[in-house]
C-alpha cells in the first residue's frame, strides 16, 4: 500500500494493465512523449514503447474509430480524450459504432475498449475544458459509464473497465486528480462496475453524488451531521449500470434525498436518479427529491465559475428545504 493521488493511482493502474495484459494499448493526443496534458500516462511510453503507448494526430473521431477497429481486431485500447469538450467530434464513432458493434453483430465482434475522459470544472479553465456531459454517454445504449471520486476506486474501476468485455466511458474528475489522496494497494486490483458505495450511513437524509461533486457532498454531510442531521452519503461511481438497489435502500430508509451534479439540470443524470427514486420509493418520500446541479447554461469561465458550480451552501440550502418539508 502507498498513499497516492487520484492521478497517480490512474497512472499505476495503467502501468499494471500494460505490464500484465499483452493486448492493452494506450492511445491519444500527447499521451506518449509528454505523458498526457494531465500526466496520467507519464512514463508509460518509455516503459512500453511506441507500439503500446501511441501518440496520435489531433483527431478525436479518428482516435475513437481507429481504437474501435483495434478493439474489434483483438486489442484492448485505452483511449484518452484530452478534455470532455473535445470528445464531441468522436461522438458519432462512440454512439454509432463503439456502443453498437456487439448488438449489430450478435456478439461476433466486440469493442472491449475504454475511453478515458477528464472532465468537470472548478479549475478556472478556458471554454470547453470544464464540462460534464456524462448524461449524453449514459443515454447511449451499449456503453458503461463510470466515475471514480477516490484514488482506490480510480485504480480499481479503471482495471475493471479495461478487463470489461464491453466499452466503458471512464470519467476522471479533473479537480480531484491531485486534491485527494489515499492508501492504495501497490499491485493491481479491480473494483466492480455497477456498485455504488455508501460512504457514510445515516438515517435522516441521503445525499447522492459522483465524481468531483463528492467533495461538496462530503463537506455538506459533515456540516449536517454537526447540525444533528444523520446524513447518508452515496457515491454512485457507476452511472451505467446504475446500482438502483443501493439508491432505493437508502431513500427508503431516509425518506429524503438530494442529488448533486455539475452538469446542467435539464435531462442531467440527476433527472434519471429522481425518476428511479420516485418510481420505486414514492410512498417513502417525505419531501420532493432536490436536485442541486449546474444551471442550464454554458459552463462559465473562471470569473463566474462560483455562480455555476453547486456549492456546499447550495447543498445545505437544499437539505434545509428537504428536511423542513
Amino acid at each position: 500500500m502507498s498513499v497516492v493521488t487520484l492521478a497517480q493511482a490512474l497512472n499505476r493502474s495503467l502501468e499494471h494493465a500494460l505490464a500484465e495484459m499483452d493486448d492493452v494499448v494506450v492511445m491519444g493526443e500527447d499521451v506518449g512523449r509528454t505523458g498526457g496534458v494531465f500526466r496520467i500516462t507519464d512514463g508509460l511510453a518509455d516503459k512500453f514503447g511506441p507500439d503500446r503507448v501511441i501518440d496520435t494526430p489531433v483527431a478525436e473521431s479518428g482516435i475513437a474509430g481507429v481504437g474501435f477497429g483495434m478493439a474489434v481486431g483483438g486489442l484492448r485500447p485505452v483511449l484518452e480524450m484530452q478534455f470532455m469538450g473535445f470528445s464531441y467530434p468522436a461522438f458519432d464513432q462512440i454512439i454509432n459504432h463503439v456502443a453498437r458493434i456487439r448488438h449489430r453483430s450478435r456478439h461476433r465482434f466486440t469493442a472491449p475498449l475504454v475511453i478515458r475522459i477528464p472532465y468537470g470544472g472548478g479549475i478556472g479553465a478556458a471554454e470547453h475544458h470544464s464540462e460534464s456531459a456524462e448524461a449524453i454517454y449514459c443515454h447511449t445504449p451499449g456503453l458503461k459509464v463510470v466515475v471514480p471520486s477516490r484514488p482506490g476506486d480510480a485504480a480499481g474501476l479503471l482495471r475493471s473497465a479495461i478487463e470489461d468485455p464491453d466499452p466503458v466511458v471512464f470519467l476522471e474528475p479533473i479537480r480531484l486528480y491531485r486534491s485527494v489522496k489515499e492508501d492504495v494497494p501497490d499491485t493491481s486490483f479491480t473494483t466492480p462496475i455497477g456498485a455504488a458505495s455508501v460512504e457514510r450511513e445515516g438515517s435522516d437524509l441521503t445525499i447522492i453524488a459522483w465524481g468531483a461533486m463528492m467533495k461538496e457532498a462530503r463537506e455538506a454531510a459533515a456540516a449536517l451531521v454537526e447540525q444533528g442531521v444523520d446524513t447518508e452519503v452515496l457515491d454512485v461511481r457507476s452511472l451505467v449500470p446504475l446500482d438502483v438497489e443501493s439508491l432505493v435502500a437508502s431513500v427508503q430508509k431516509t425518506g429524503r434525498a438530494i442529488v448533486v451534479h455539475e452538469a446542467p439540470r435539464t435531462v442531467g443524470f440527476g433527472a434519471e436518479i429522481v425518476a428511479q427514486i420516485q418510481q420505486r420509493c414514492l410512498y417513502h418520500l417525505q419531501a420532493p427529491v432536490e436536485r442541486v446541479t449546474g444551471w442550464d447554461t454554458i459552463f462559465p469561465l473562471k470569473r463566474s465559475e462560483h455562480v455555476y458550480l453547486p456549492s456546499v451552501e447550495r447543498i445545505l440550502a437544499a437539505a434545509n428545504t428537504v428536511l423542513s418539508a
Partner: protein
Amino acid sequence: MLQILTPSGDLVAEAPLDLDMTTRLYRALVFARAYDRKSTALQKQGRLATYAPFEGQEAAQVGSAAALNPDDWLVGTYRDAAAMWMQGYPLDLLFAGRTGDERGGSPPEPINVMPPSITVGGHMVHAVGLAWAERLQGSDRVAITYFGDGATSEGDFHEAMNFAGVFDVGCVFFCQNNGWAISMPRESQTASETIAQKAIAYGMPGIQVDGNDLFAVFSATRDAVLRARLGEGPTLIEAMTYRLGPHTTADDPSRYRTEDESAEWRRKDPLERVRIYLSERDRWSEEWQAEIEAQASAEVEEAVAAAEALDPPGVAGVFDAMFADLPPILAEQRRMAEEAE
C-alpha cells in the same frame, strides 16, 4: 486511369489472371448480378427492406475482393454485398440483414468481414484500426475498406487516411466512384480533379482504375494489398464505375440524372467485356451462361429461403446482445418486454 480490358473485350496490357481464374471470377460476376437483381425484386414484393443495388459495380467489387487472402479484413458499406460475399460472408446472412434481422450482422468465424456500414464515412477508420491491430499482434493480415465518392467528403475519410499514412498501416482504401451520391454528382461532391489524387494529402500512393474492368481492378488491388502486407503502407484506389440503378429502391434517379448518361455506362458493362474475352478464348458458351445463371439463381433462392425461415428474433433479439452480461436495469426491462409481448 489504369485499364487492361476495354469495354469491347480487348486486352491493352497483359492480363493479370489466367483463364481459369478469369472464368471463376466471371462466374462470380454473374452471381453478383443475380443476387442484386433478385434483391431488388424481393424488395418490390415487400420481402426485403430498402435495398441499395450495385448493378454496374460488379467488377469493382469482385475484382478487388479477389485480391485478398481469405482471412484479410473487409469493411464495406450497404452497397458492397458482392465484395462481402466474395470474402465469405454468407449469402443468407446478407439477406437476413435486409429482412430487418440483426442476425444478418453476424458472419461465422473465421470470416473477417464486418457487417455493412450504414453510416457514410464512419467505417474507414475501423479498417485502419483492424489492420493496425493485426500488425501489432504480429500478423500480416491486411484490411480493405470500400466506400463511395460521397463518403470522401466526410471528416472521417480524412482522419482514416491521415492515420493510415502516419502509422503506415496496412490498409487499402477502395473507393467506388460511381458518379453519384444519391442526387449529388461527383463534380459537386469535391473540386478535386480526381479522388485518387487526394492520396497526396496523406503521403500515400493513389491510383485511378477503370472500375468496370475486372483485370485493372484486380491488378491495382493486388499491388496495394501486397504493399500493405509487406508493411509498406496504405494505398488509395479510385475505381471509376457507375451505379446503373437507383440509389436505393426508394430513390428515383430521373429526378437528378438523364437516361443518356446511364445508357452510356450500360455500354461499359463490367460483365460483357469479360464475357467477350472468355468467348474469344473458347471459355464461354450460351449453355454455360445459362447453367451458371441457373446455379446462381438457385443459390440465391436458397439463401433467401434460409433468411426467411429464421424464427422471429423476439425479445432476445432486442436485449441479449447489448452486453456480454445483461446489467440489472436491462434485465428488468427485458422482463417488462416479455410481459408486453
